[in-house]
């Protein structure tokens, strides 16, 4: 009560005059209702997202090619639906997706469970290192493994030949084996990242309840923990399966030379390896793929819509760790070591190693050189690719932060139905595989008359990156907005801050962290993307990924290695920056 003794009542009369007048906010003066802004944003998103969808769908019923629609026809679909051609593609895609999912799920569950719930050795190290492969572009580890394990002059095969005199390849990563092997490495990392949180956050009282009722710890795992996480696991599995259907880099690099064709590389083959390109058939196949993907997503919604995150109450107390017998602990740890060697150390090591040799496969002391590095740094093409990648990815990431922020804000803070529409549109590209998106953009922006014809300009690639980054970017921004209590803004409004000043003084500073995280995610997605620039580039606007593919296809392995490492450095620098700012916040 001491607070209130003393004569501290505010001296009202004297200061009242010094309070300035509150000004009516601009928007209120103009009398524009906020719904106008929502609608404008919806139009923007429709142009970015729905328009290419629509054009793709329309053009699948026409005979022409981008820029020239041609005449109405059903022949594009007839090719696929009246012959057996679709069957092997569908079959291959399902086999590919299922096997990488199965392998990924098994190891991800094992690692996530071990890291979150057991006394496995070096838990902290494992939790920190298993997600790393996810952040390394697929393209790079693929190059590393292909240098090691291609049947003609893979380093492993060459070594076997030199040391043991074995003729013929001991290892062949072309085709099914390499495809599934390499795709699984990344999948394990991704699924671990998604799952470990669920294991960590799951409310321990559910398990403790079972323990008090007489269940052994192992029994608790099998009857409580895993069943309760089943919805989350299923949901993530479907996501991974869908991503398998649309993945491009792995089928292109491992599948093509082995004659394994899934949706993505088949579509690309028809566009790039056939003369003239079979636009009609490729477009129809793209639409079929979208239909399949969409059906799976609807299935996921129906099956799991209501009970997704129910087990995570986030009470935040630590469940007791299961004590495993020594051989199991170290067994799991060895698996982790092997995994990390395969996913990161060996392929990246090979690239680093190779970047110091002039001729691929000739590894002797006398051949060590820095020539690759000086070449790359003086190489206009590689440097141009790097510059383009940085510029395009930066612009796209900034755009996604702004668009995603607005969408997230409208969705979280207003009850307006347009919020749901915006969210849905921002999320829609998730169902669009990269190659299909590239093709759709090709149709959408190469078709219209000037000045809307953007083909061959940087803008079309930037648009592609924005669309590609939008689903994750908008989701991240939305959760960032979600974390800000609405009362923080309301408090500003009540105390005299107009809408605009509230954004400037309250919302923007509080969102800075989330905005940066979003920027990093979208930048990383754009910087590693191959599919969009591959279909849309023209010489001087090519990105680093396209340059890399070019070096690979021309077997310029030294330059490829050095350029790959530049690409890796770019992505890693950004992630490090993100990590550093996060540490600083703490």
């Amino acid at each position: 009560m001491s607070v209130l003794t003393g004569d501290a009542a505010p001296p009202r009369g004297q200061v009242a005059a010094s309070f300035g007048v509150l000004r009516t906010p601009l928007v209120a003066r103009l009398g524009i209702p906020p719904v106008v802004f929502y609608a404008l944003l919806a139009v923007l998103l429709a142009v970015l997202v729905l328009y290419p969808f629509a054009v793709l769908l329309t053009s699948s019923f026409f005979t022409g090619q981008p820029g020239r629609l041609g005449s109405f026809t059903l022949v594009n679909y007839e090719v696929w639906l009246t012959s057996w051609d679709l069957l092997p593609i569908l079959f291959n895609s399902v086999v590919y997706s299922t096997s990488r999912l199965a392998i990924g799920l098994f190891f991800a569950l094992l690692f996530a469970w071990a890291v979150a719930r057991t006394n496995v050795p070096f838990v902290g190290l494992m939790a920190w290192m298993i997600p790393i492969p996810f952040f390394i572009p697929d393209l790079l580890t693929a190059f590393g493994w292909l240098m090691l394990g291609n049947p003609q002059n893979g380093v492993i095969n060459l070594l076997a030949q030199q040391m043991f005199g074995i003729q013929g390849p001991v290892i062949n990563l072309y085709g099914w084996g390499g495809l599934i092997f390499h795709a699984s490495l990344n999948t394990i990392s991704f699924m671990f990242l998604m799952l470990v949180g669920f294991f960590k956050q799951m409310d321990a009282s559910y398990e403790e309840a079972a323990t008090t009722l007489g269940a052994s710890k192992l029994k608790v795992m099998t009857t409580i923990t895993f069943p309760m996480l089943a919805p989350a696991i299923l949901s993530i599995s479907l996501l991974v399966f869908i991503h398998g259907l649309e993945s491009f880099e792995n089928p292109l690099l491992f599948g093509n030379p082995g004659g394994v064709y899934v949706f993505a590389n088949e579509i690309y083959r028809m566009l790039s390896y056939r003369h003239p390109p079979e636009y009609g058939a490729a477009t129809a196949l793209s639409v079929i793929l979208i239909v399949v993907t969409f059906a799976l997503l609807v299935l996921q919604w129906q099956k799991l819509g209501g009970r997704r995150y129910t087990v995570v109450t986030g009470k935040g107390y630590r469940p007791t760790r299961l004590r495993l017998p020594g051989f199991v602990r170290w067994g799991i740890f060895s698996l982790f070591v092997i995994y990390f060697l395969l996913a990161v150390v060996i392929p990246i090591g090979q690239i680093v190693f190779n970047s110091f040799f002039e001729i691929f496969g000739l590894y002797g002391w006398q051949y060590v050189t820095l020539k690759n590095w000086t070449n790359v740094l003086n190489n206009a093409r590689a440097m141009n690719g790097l510059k383009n990648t940085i510029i395009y990815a930066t612009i796209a990431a900034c755009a996604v932060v702004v668009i995603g922020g607005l969408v997230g804000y409208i969705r979280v803070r207003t009850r307006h139905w347009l919020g749901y529409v915006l969210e849905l549109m921002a999320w829609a590209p998730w169902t669009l595989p990269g190659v299909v998106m590239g093709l759709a953009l090709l149709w959408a922006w190469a078709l219209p008359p000037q000045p809307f014809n953007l083909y061959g300009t940087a803008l079309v690639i930037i648009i592609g990156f924005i669309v590609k980054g939008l689903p994750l970017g908008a989701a991240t921004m939305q959760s960032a907005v979600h974390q800000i209590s609405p009362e923080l803004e309301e408090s500003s409004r009540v105390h005299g801050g107009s809408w605009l000043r509230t954004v400037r003084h309250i919302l923007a500073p509080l969102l800075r962290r989330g905005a940066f995280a979003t920027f990093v995610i979208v930048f990383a997605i754009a910087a590693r993307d191959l599919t969009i620039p591959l279909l849309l580039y023209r010489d001087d606007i090519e990105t680093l990924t396209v340059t890399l593919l070019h070096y690979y296809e021309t077997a310029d392995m030294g330059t490829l290695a050095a350029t790959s490492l530049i690409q890796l450095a770019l992505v890693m620098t950004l992630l490090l920056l993100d990590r550093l700012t996060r540490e600083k916040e703490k």
Partner: protein
Amino acid sequence: MPDIALDNLSKRFGTLVAVDGATLTAADGELLTLLGPSGCGKTTTLRMIAGLEEPSGGSIRIGDRMVYDHARGIDVPAEMRGLGMVFQTYAIWPHMTVAENIAYPLRMRHVRRAGRRELVDKMLDLVGLAGLGDKPSTLLSGGQQQRVALARALVFEPALLLLDEPLSNLDAKLREQMRFELRIMQQRVGLTAIYVTHDQEEALTLSDRLVVMNHGEIEQIGTPIDVYERPATRFVAQFIGKGNMIDVASGVDWQPSGARLTLHSGARVAEVHIPSSSIRTEPVRKAAATTNGGATPAASLFVRPEKIEIGDGTRTGTRSQQAVQLAGRVIGRAYVGNRAEYLVMINDATSLKVEASTDVTVGAGREVMLSIAPEDMVLYRPSLQ
């Protein structure tokens, strides 16, 4: 300091009526509390006054300024209403220091830096946080955050102070202390304040007047004594404090001067006469909402546990001949420090809560006599209109 008047203020969310025609006034310098269970519309009402929620109808006047009038299309935005508000979560901005938080309303009003500094220091003094101005606001305890929130809401001398369950996030001890501090501060500044809470004790001790709300409707407006002693509706009677509601199925003789009815307790039949001043009439629809789904009784008799006197089987207490005498059996007893609570069964359908001082001790299972003075009873009569 201006007064405030709400006239027929309503809010609908789709088909749900959150606030149904709220009409009330708070006089200059008054602390008016909106009290009710969660979902009763009290917070929505407060938010409409603040301008954070757009009403569906009615009007809001603060002083001589109309800030919302549905009919005339007036809707002053929140930031132009010049109000101070303390939020349930305090809403202290984590990216600002204590002083920056408090200075914010002044900054919005273009007060110069030096002036801001001076006013903020005065407020820090007032709320007992002197010298903590440069502290990051994230390092404050709950009670300190509460004080910063209050300082921020008062620093620009608002027309009206709004408080949205400001004490609900504090622990019990601190809550009680802050309750008195708030009250004294509000009286010292002489500010009109609207206070929202679901805690009846808080409401009774803090307010000049209470507004009891339920299902979006105002049930009663009155001083704490009014509301406690003379609850206007069955809902208010049951929501505030402890009470006994004896439903009378039939046999009520309604007369202009009052009502006559009989109460059966064991072999005893007690004649009860309730004067018309103690009879409250309320619509059947509302009465039905508070009787757990059963048939609407002809009338309900209400009495507070502490108004019932308990004596052992032979003595009938010290009350006058007028008092209603009921026979019953003690089926439960609880010791609550300075007094004892009994549950006494007077017939198969009814048991009464009784509170007595601890110098009377009656064990469980004993036959007892209860006596109730007629003026301590309120009779609720459902009406069809």
